[in-house]
Each structure stands twice: as structure tokens, then as C-alpha cells.
């Protein structure tokens, strides 16, 4: 009963999404093309030249080119940004703008089904975005191993859910969308720039590295990168730590999202 109700919520989202499918897929494709071209190829040329990188890659980046270094981190970071977008205004739409959630709870669907069905849909959306991103990376020839890059996709999606679930929980408490720009400005954008997406944090002062531990994105990027470069085996304990942090945020966020949406809709 509950599982089929969650599937109905998912189905509804898919039907609505179908209307914007083409535009959405195009921008999911364009975004990595632009970033990889500008940052990976353009900026990467200078980075690699300055580090006197040879055919064996950039020694400062563990022997890969800057483009190769950037790709898995940017994959996780891009999925995270999409996660934040999918978890803010669409939730507000259901509660306040179009009130569709209220139409749903008048049927056998419960608030819990709505929360879980919506998170399941966001997971599917992020998977689409991550797959398209990976295809673009491969087209740029920016992955040492195609198989390993594909293996990093679930980590990128999990990283996205580590943000999506808590943000959905937050959105469920909001009266309008006024607080969302602050979420982007003070949380997702700084993390996107400072969680090791564009440069390694190894050389930075110890307090900065300690702070990075608090960022689920840093864990997601570190894990995605070590999978994509086949380096998990060198420190499996650390990989498990990263995974645990991501699961904690995604799982705790899901629990909060269910609770907050129930409180919001059932009065």
C-alpha cells in the first residue's frame, strides 16, 4: 500500500517533468560542456603548464591532468547544485503556490508518501543529470577509466541526496520562498567553490581542512574522485568514513523531511 502510494507520487512528478523534458535535458548537457571547456580545458592548460606536467599528468594533482582532476569533483558538485534547486521551489509549489500536496493528502496518499515519493523523484532526476554529465566527461576524454567514472555516479547522486533531503525538510517549514536565495548564497555556492571541486585542500591550513570535514560535499567529492581514479583501495577506511557521512545526511534529512511535511500538511 505505502510502496504503491510512494510510486504514485513519483509518477505524478514524472508526468509533470515530461512537459519540460527537452529543455531540461539540454541544460543538463550544456552545463558540464561549458564548465569542462572553460575550467577543465582552458584553465587546465595554465595549471598543467605551471606545474610542468608531462605526459604522465600533473604531479601536484597525483599524476592526472587538471581536466581529469576536475571532472569527478565537478560531477558531484554539479549534482549537489541541482539537488538544491529541485528541493526548494518545487516543494514550496506543492505546499503554497499550487497546493498540490493538499490535493494528494485528500486521497489515500499520506504526507509520508509525498515526502518519500518526492525524494525518490529527486534521486531519479539527479541520476539523469549525473549520467549526462559523465557522458560529456567521456566525450572530453577527461576520465582515466570510463568504467570507474560510471562507478562514481552513485556517489555523486548520494552526495546530491545528502543535500536534497535536509533541504526538502527545511523547505517544508517555510511560508514562502524568501529564504531560498540565502540557502544558495550561503550554503551551496560557497561549498561548490570551496569543497575541493577546483583545487585540492591538502595544502591549506589545518583549520580549513577540519572545516571541510563538516561539508558533505567535500566527502562526496573526495569519494567520487578516489573511485574515479581507482584509489579507494589505498585507504578503504577513509572511503567508508566519506560514505557514512553522506548516508547520515541523506538518511537524517529524509527522516526530517517526512516529519516536517507531516507537521505541515496534517493539522
Amino acid at each position, binding site marked *: *500500500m505505502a510502496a*504503491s*502510494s510512494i510510486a*504514485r507520487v513519483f*509518477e*505524478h512528478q514524472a*508526468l*509533470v517533468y515530461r*512537459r519540460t523534458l527537452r529543455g531540461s535535458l539540454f541544460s543538463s548537457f550544456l552545463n558540464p560542456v561549458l564548465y569542462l571547456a572553460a575550467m577543465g580545458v582552458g584553465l587546465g592548460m595554465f595549471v598543467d603548464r605551471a606545474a610542468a606536467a608531462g605526459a604522465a599528468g600533473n604531479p601536484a594533482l597525483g599524476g592526472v591532468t587538471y581536466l581529469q582532476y576536475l571532472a569527478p569533483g565537478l560531477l558531484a558538485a554539479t549534482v549537489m547544485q541541482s539537488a538544491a534547486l529541485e528541493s526548494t521551489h518545487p516543494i514550496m509549489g506543492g505546499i503554497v503556490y*499550487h*497546493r*498540490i500536496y*493538499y*490535493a*494528494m*493528502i*485528500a*486521497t*489515500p*496518499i*499520506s504526507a509520508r508518501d509525498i515526502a518519500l515519493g518526492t525524494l525518490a523523484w529527486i534521486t531519479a532526476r539527479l541520476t539523469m543529470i549525473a549520467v549526462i554529465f559523465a557522458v560529456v566527461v567521456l566525450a572530453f576524454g577527461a576520465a582515466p577509466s570510463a568504467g570507474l567514472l560510471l562507478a562514481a555516479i552513485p556517489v555523486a547522486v548520494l552526495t546530491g541526496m545528502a543535500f536534497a533531503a535536509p533541504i526538502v525538510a527545511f523547505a517544508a517549514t517555510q511560508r514562502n520562498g524568501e529564504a531560498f536565495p540565502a540557502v544558495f548564497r550561503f550554503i551551496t555556492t560557497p561549498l561548490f567553490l570551496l569543497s575541493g571541486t577546483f583545487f585540492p585542500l591538502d595544502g591549506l591550513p589545518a583549520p580549513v581542512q577540519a572545516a571541510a570535514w563538516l561539508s558533505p560535499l567535500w566527502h562526496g567529492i573526495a569519494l567520487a574522485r578516489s573511485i574515479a581514479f581507482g584509489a579507494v583501495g589505498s585507504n578503504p577506511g577513509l572511503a567508508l568514513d566519506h560514505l557514512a557521512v553522506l548516508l547520515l545526511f541523506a538518511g537524517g534529512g529524509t527522516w526530517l523531511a517526512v516529519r516536517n511535511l507531516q507537521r505541515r*500538511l*496534517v*493539522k
Partner: protein
Amino acid sequence: MAQPSAASAADVPSLIHARGLTKRFGSFMAVDGIDFDVAPGESFGFLGPNGAGKTSTMRMIGAVSPVSAGTLRILGMDPGRDGARIRARLGVVPQQDNLDVDLTLRENLIVYGRYFDIPWAEGARRADELLDFAQLADRRDTQVESLSGGMKRRLTIARAMINQPDVLLLDEPTTGLDPQARHILWDRLYGLKQRGVTLVLTTHYMDEAQQLCDRLVVMDKGRIVAEGSPNSLIAQYTTREVTELRFPVGTQAAALPTLEGLADRIEVLPDRVLMYAEDGEVVAEGVHARGLHPETVLVRRSTLEDVFLRLTGRSLID
């Protein structure tokens, strides 16, 4: 407190049964211990001003709002335990539209049917039928955004019928609609009533209650203050006719003593005086015979508005 008729409660198992039904929000009593029964096939109304507790009552009946105290049984089930099973057999038309503006009319109905586990093909078949019924068939593939307010309401009613509900709950179905749209909607609801659908509705329009309800309760401040059919309530609480007098601004107070004894009962409102009597024309003649010259004199039949005024001392819509 009004007594639900003992005979109907005993003979026919009621679809909705409430005793001491209460809803509290913090220290605020939205619904304060009300009793009522709704029989199968009946059109039952909650009449009252804004804030009377009608919507809170409807949300409890809809099994989306937990009961604070008292007993509530819907289709013989307890909403606290069997919420999803109850909701599977209800149709709900909320006060505020919550249609899916991104989808077409037809998709709205089919997707809503999916929430009841109605297969896509069967949902499509029912959607076409219901769009015919709602007189929206020619717009079935347009997006909801382009509809007028009255059309949206009709679509919402069609949507509420997709699961062939035992009870249709309508919370202020025509609030905010223009008179023509209201009449079309009433006509559609009357059609459902003819088909034997049980209607439960709230309204603050007395003409709506008179048109649609077999029986109604008048609510004020969370309590039921009267119960009966529209005609029996009028017979019980007011006279057959009313004479409305409007005096030139500032002269009403001076005229009041002269009016005494002309009618069975007199209600003084800020802008007019209502004189209740069996024959309104006699009252009007009496007013002129006493040398008073109101700006306007209107003789009309009593309505539920007069019942409400009598019971609470206030107008339904201020």
C-alpha cells in the same frame, strides 16, 4: 443543542456520525463538541459565517485533520485508524483550488485517479465521462492555467468524482464565483444529488444552502445552534415575510419608537430595519399610516439569513 432525528439514526446506518466532535488549535476551540449524522443519499450542509468551524469540521470528516476529542465515524470507520481507507471512498472539493496547473484537464483527472490506484486506461475512460459531465470536454487537452474560476471549480468537482466516491465533501464550492458560474455549478451538483451521491457542503450563502441542502446545521463559534431542513428552520425561527426599511441617513434612530408593535419582531441593523411578520404588506402600510417615510421599503420572504440573524444577532456575511 439540536437533536439529530432518532428515527433516521436508528433505521439507516449513518454515513457520517459525530458526537461531541471537537477540534482545538492550541487554546483556540475551532469546533466545540458538535453532534450530527448524515444519512446515505442526503444533502447535508454546514451554514455559518467565516470562522464558525465549518472548514475544520470538513477537514476532520475528510480524514486529514486529527480529531481533538469526541467520536467521529465515517462510513463506519475511525479516521484516526483507517484514514487512508476512508479517503479512498471520499471525494473532496477544497475551498482553495489545488489543481495541477502544469497538466491538462484530462491529465489532472487521470493522475488524480492514480492516487486511488485506478489504472491509467480506466482513469482515462472516467476522465472523458466526467469532463462531459462538467461541460469541459472541448478543453480537455488544454492546460488548467487558462480556465476561468468557474471552470476550475467544475474541474475540481469532476476530479473529486474520479473514484466514484460514496460521499462528496464540498467546502464553500461557489465562494468567489460570479452569479452565472454559481448557477451552472449548482445545476451540476443538483445532477449529482439526483444520481444519489451523498453531498456534504459548507457555505455562507443562504441561497446556496436553500438550493442544495435537504438538511443543514447552522454553526456559530464552533457550535451548532440549529438543525433542520431549510424550510423547517425558517418556519421555526422566523416569520413568513420580512419588510426591510431603509431610512435617510441619520433618521433611523428617531423612527424606531414609532415602529414598535407593527411587527412580530424587529431587528435593527446599522443601515436598515427588518420587520418580521406573516404579511409584509400589512407592515408596510402600517409604517406609512404612522407617518413615516423610509427611503425604500422592500417586502420579501424570510430566508436562512434571517434565521441566522435571529439565532446569533449577526449577519452571515459582514
